[in-house]
């Protein structure tokens, strides 16, 4: 079975986000009433697994091992089966 996962990695609350802060400031300079900007990274992963459960477990492990650093990152993902 073939799957597609959309993984979003973002900073945990409480960790400073210099990229988001700089972007927020720029948007304010463009006259938008922006309070905060959070920056996330999105990965789209195409892979094979024998079931949806296995696919989800696999993506969770990919996040813990490589895509996120648990010290500062949160992650969430959606997995869907594709043709």
């Amino acid at each position, binding site marked *: 079975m073939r799957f597609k996962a959309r993984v979003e990695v973002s900073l*945990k609350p*409480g*960790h*400073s*986000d*210099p*990229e988001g*802060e*700089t972007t927020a400031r720029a948007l304010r300079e463009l006259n938008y009433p922006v309070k905060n900007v959070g920056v996330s990274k999105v990965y789209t992963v195409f892979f094979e697994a024998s079931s949806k459960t296995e696919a989800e477990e696999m993506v969770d492990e990919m996040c*813990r*091992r*490589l*895509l996120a*650093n*648990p*010290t*500062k990152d949160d992650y969430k993902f959606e997995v869907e089966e594709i043709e």
Partner: protein
Amino acid sequence: MKREAIRVCILRVGGTNCDAETKRAFDDLGVKAEIIHFNELLRGRKQLADYDLLVFPGGFSFGDYVRAGAIWAKWFIAKLGKNLEEFMDQEKPILGICNGFQILVEAGILPGFEGISKYPEAALATNVPPGYNCRWVYVKNENRGKCVFTSKIPEKSVLRIPVAHSEGRFVFPKEREKNLLERLLENDQLVLRYCHKNGEPAEGEYPANPNGSFYDIAGICNSTGTVLGLMPHPERAYYGWQLPDWTRLKKVPNYADGKLIFESVIDYLTRKF
């Protein structure tokens, strides 16, 4: 062991860019340093066990994709984790400079409170203020004697070494920050802290602390003191002529402060093995 018998493995992959000057520093000390591509270890053409010191030099390994150092760190552990553990068990030293420090943290080798951790216990996050920062900074040796890379540096003395990075802000998980710092201090794993010229702590103040690092942390070692990771580049402060003000100095010294780090580890190797 004799100095000339010491073999140093300076590893590189695409994006590594401080391997040549790191080799030059070791060459000057009379040891045998080689620049080895990671693929040579993967394909078994070179064996990690044949070397006495492993160095992850600075650069942007694998384009700094995902997070700086993350890709190489995980790849290394997945393929050569066992060899690395054997290397460390023999108390052979490992040095990670800049990107090398990021690799050691991402690999769970540093801080390594209880050996190599499965997931990273710290991170080198995006600088605050944001952006790439290349400047000379002052760092203070805070180690009380455990780290084999600072044995020739008197405790509390100040070194002048440059940094050049955009992801160098050392952080612990927020909720365990205080506990982990206490553990780091207790275990004598804190090695270098950013400071002012007179040795006063930077206290997070830019530019003395160039990246917003927690507790002004610039370098730490593992629990056995044989693995050092640091953001500053000692290989760029090895010779006197690398100093930013060397043309204005009345007398240019032959060597600069970075040499002490290389000398310390070579001294360790000659005494230990």
